[in-house]
């Protein structure tokens, strides 16, 4: 009997010591580079990584992607959730004890206010992604820790959308005072509190001691340094002035850093959820003719080009309308059945020439409008023009500053252009927006309407079973690549080089994800 207290004490000591052993170290300020700066502080009104990287650590969302296990989703402010059998009701149980940075309590009212702002922004408020939430019929808050979303119709992407990094949860009280409060103020529930934004220079956040995840964040703070020039960013990384840059590096920059730093750095590589697409102004002849468009797609040796371009540019993967490697994307075998994706390029080009001749434009000449951004627009533009030259097509390469390029595409002052399709996650509801009819999609610059495509898109949105969804996606993709109003070229390849002492960060196919820095720590 006398041994029992001793045994109990030993067991207790073991339990305490086991619970006290953490690999992560607390402390330190993470410095990282960002190549651009956010224009304002409102998550709902921004589209750029330049916003996500410095600002995201101040906020939470309802759900988030499990970065170490992408595309798995896990709770952020939501502790758990259920989806009704008819996929029309999403019920979230919210975490308790969550505070905003000003000390006020977080509750379901804040979720409701934030999502109402996203889905139905009041006058004067910009919500870039409101269209994606148009299926939300109502948001109910039966109690302070439960929020219920009711949809008008099933939406296969809904759960992923709740994990969007752009759906920052704001304070309902602050929004009530001023719906545009987040535009000029940073006040969330996130792991870091806003300290300073020196315009043109840097952004500073410090640990929020009241963060709901005990023990996190590990960092004392972070400093995002705005470095526009690519060479200057690489220099800063090489010198260790910054430990990371979270968007991506070109192959040449990666090689330089690895050569200079060797085993001091980690290199992460994977397909990126971004693609360059060729788009035609279908209101201008001869691009109103599907034969011409298809011919220009058939002329491209995507497989050979991907291999060659991957050495000099951040493109590498051949894929259709969905990112290669994504679970709903076609297999390579399926892909090669589509026009322009066959492995026999000579056969494809012969067919291309035949189509051009049939369409009456065997010696086609046109102007190709591109952005004047070296990576990867210029090399891909040059590649395309060279490929078209192989079938007797002469193309003038017009590279414009982003503002002028945007204006040209939107106004239809172009013949053919190189556009891009980048999203924060693999989700057909997002990726396929580019290909929908012009009267349904604000990012269709091809100026066409195709109800077959619209119908197939709607069917895959409403599909409640995976096989059905895949069926509609394959049909959609086939139509896109046959009609070729807009077709994908080569998908991007993401390369990140970070100093090894930065730990806890996980790579994903998107440069918009996993940027709350709550799990990052410095091994120093």
């Amino acid at each position, binding site marked *: 009997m006398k041994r029992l207290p001793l045994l109990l004490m030993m067991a207790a000591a073991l339990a305490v010591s086991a619970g006290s052993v953490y690999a992560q170290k607390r402390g330190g300020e993470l410095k990282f580079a960002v190549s651009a700066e956010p224009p304002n502080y409102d998550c709902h009104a921004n589209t750029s990584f330049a916003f996500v990287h410095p600002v995201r650590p101040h906020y939470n969302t309802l759900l988030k992607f499990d970065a170490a296990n992408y595309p798995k989703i896990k709770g952020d402010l939501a502790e758990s959730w259920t989806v009704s059998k008819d996929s029309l009701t999403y019920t979230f149980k919210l975490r308790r004890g969550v505070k905003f940075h000003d000390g006020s309590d977080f509750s379901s009212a804040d979720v409701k206010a934030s999502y109402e702002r996203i889905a139905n922004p009041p006058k*004067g408020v910009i919500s870039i992604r409101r269209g994606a939430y148009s299926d939300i019929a109502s948001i109910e808050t039966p109690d302070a820790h439960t929020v219920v979303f009711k949809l008008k119709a099933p939406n296969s992407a809904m759960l992923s959308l709740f994990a969007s990094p752009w759906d920052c949860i704001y304070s309902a009280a602050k929004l009530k005072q001023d719906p545009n409060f987040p535009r000029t103020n940073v006040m969330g529930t996130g792991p870091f509190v806003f300290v300073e934004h020196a315009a043109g220079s840097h952004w500073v956040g410090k640990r929020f001691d009241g963060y709901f995840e005990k023990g996190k964040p590990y960092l004392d703070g972070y400093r995002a340094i705005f470095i526009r020039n690519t060479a200057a960013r690489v220099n800063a990384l090489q010198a260790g002035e910054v430990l990371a840059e979270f968007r991506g590096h070109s192959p040449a920059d990666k090689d330089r850093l690895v050569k200079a730093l060797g085993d001091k750095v980690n290199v992460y590589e994977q397909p990126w959820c971004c693609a360059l697409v060729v788009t035609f102004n279908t209101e201008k002849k001869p691009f109103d003719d599907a034969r011409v468009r298809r011919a220009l797609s058939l002329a491209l040796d995507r497989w050979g080009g991907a291999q060659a371009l991957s050495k000099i540019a951040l493109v590498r993967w051949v894929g259709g309308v969905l990112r290669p490697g994504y679970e709903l994307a076609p297999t390579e075998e399926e892909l090669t059945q589509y026009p322009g994706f066959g492995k026999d390029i000579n056969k494809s080009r012969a067919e291309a020439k035949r189509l051009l001749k049939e369409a009456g434009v065997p010696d086609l000449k046109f102007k190709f409008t591109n952005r004047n951004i070296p990576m990867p627009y210029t090399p891909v533009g040059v590649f395309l023009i060279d490929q078209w030259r192989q079938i007797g097509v002469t193309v003038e390469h017009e590279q414009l500053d982003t503002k002028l390029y945007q204006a040209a595409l939107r106004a239809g002052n172009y013949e053919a252009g190189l556009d891009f399709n980048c999203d924060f996650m693999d989700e057909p509801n997002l990726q396929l927006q580019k290909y929908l009819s012009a009267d349904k999609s604000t990012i269709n610059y091809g100026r066409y309407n195709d109800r077959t495509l619209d119908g197939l898109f709607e069917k895959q949105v409403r599909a409640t079973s995976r096989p059905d969804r895949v069926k509609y996606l394959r049909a959609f993709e086939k139509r896109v690549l046959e009609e070729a109003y807009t077709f994908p070229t080569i998908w991007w390849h993401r390369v990140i080089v970070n100093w090894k002492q930065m730990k806890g960060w996980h790579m994903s196919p998107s440069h918009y994800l996993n940027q709350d820095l709550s799990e990052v720590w410095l091994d120093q």
Partner: protein
Amino acid sequence: MLRYIVNRLLLMIPTLIGVAILVFILLRMMPGDIVELKLLAEGGGVDAATLEAERARLGLDKSLWGQFVDWMTGLATLDFGVSMWTGRPVIEEISSRLELSMQVALMATFLAIIIAIPLGTLSALFKDTWIDHVIRVFAIAGLAVPSFWLGMVIILLLLLNFNWIPPLTYTPIYEDPWRNLSQLIWPAMAVGYRYSAVATRMMRSTILEVLQEDYIRTARAKGVLERLVIARHALRNAMLPVITVIGLEFAFLIGGLVVTEQVFNLNGLGKLFVETVTRGDFTMVQALVMLIAGFFIIINFIVDLLYAVFDPRVRYR
């Protein structure tokens, strides 16, 4: 002299008004739309109503005449408005960068003066000797080498030899002089070298000219020590064109170091200028142009006044 000063100050006003009108017209002739760039550049999809609402918020839905009246009214009250991109007051955006740009310009000017005046003088005095040749090579190299390239070389040499680069963010000199100077001495050197090359060559040629003058021969004939002849007579007269060059270069440095600022990651006015022009941020560009124009006018005015200081024959009425 006082009347001259007042006249010059009053003349600044129509000059600045002319610049204001010109920059307004030129900006509106540029194609592109800041609203589309802000909301659509990274693939965002917003509807036409949202775009129109944002344009209205920025005042871009007004007629050109309405926008012009707003601009001129603001100018008259020194209210430059807010940036169309960030929404922050234009004055705030500029002032946070002005300090750095001014310091780089002053440091480069100081370096240029302390290099150019002695070297230019020596080169003239020892004309066609090896001293002259060395200095002339130094000056020509300074003219030939772009300052941004020199900046890149400096950064790479520091990085490869010392594994160190200058600090990436600005600290005012009164907060941490060492950190401030360790950041800004390098761009000041890169820019100052070219600056000193221009001034050195100007100094050399003006001294050579002045040394041919009668009053120099007279001073020598009177037995004045050579160093006094140079210091009191030659230098003073040779300085006039050099002051003009130094003044114009200094004014240029305030907003003209676009590429150098990028190389050294300096948050200066040059970088701001390029960014705002690229974005079509009318209010910012207009304010920056007025600032630079104002600087040029004031610097030119100061140079003209210095003429009177250096040359007592110059009297302004």
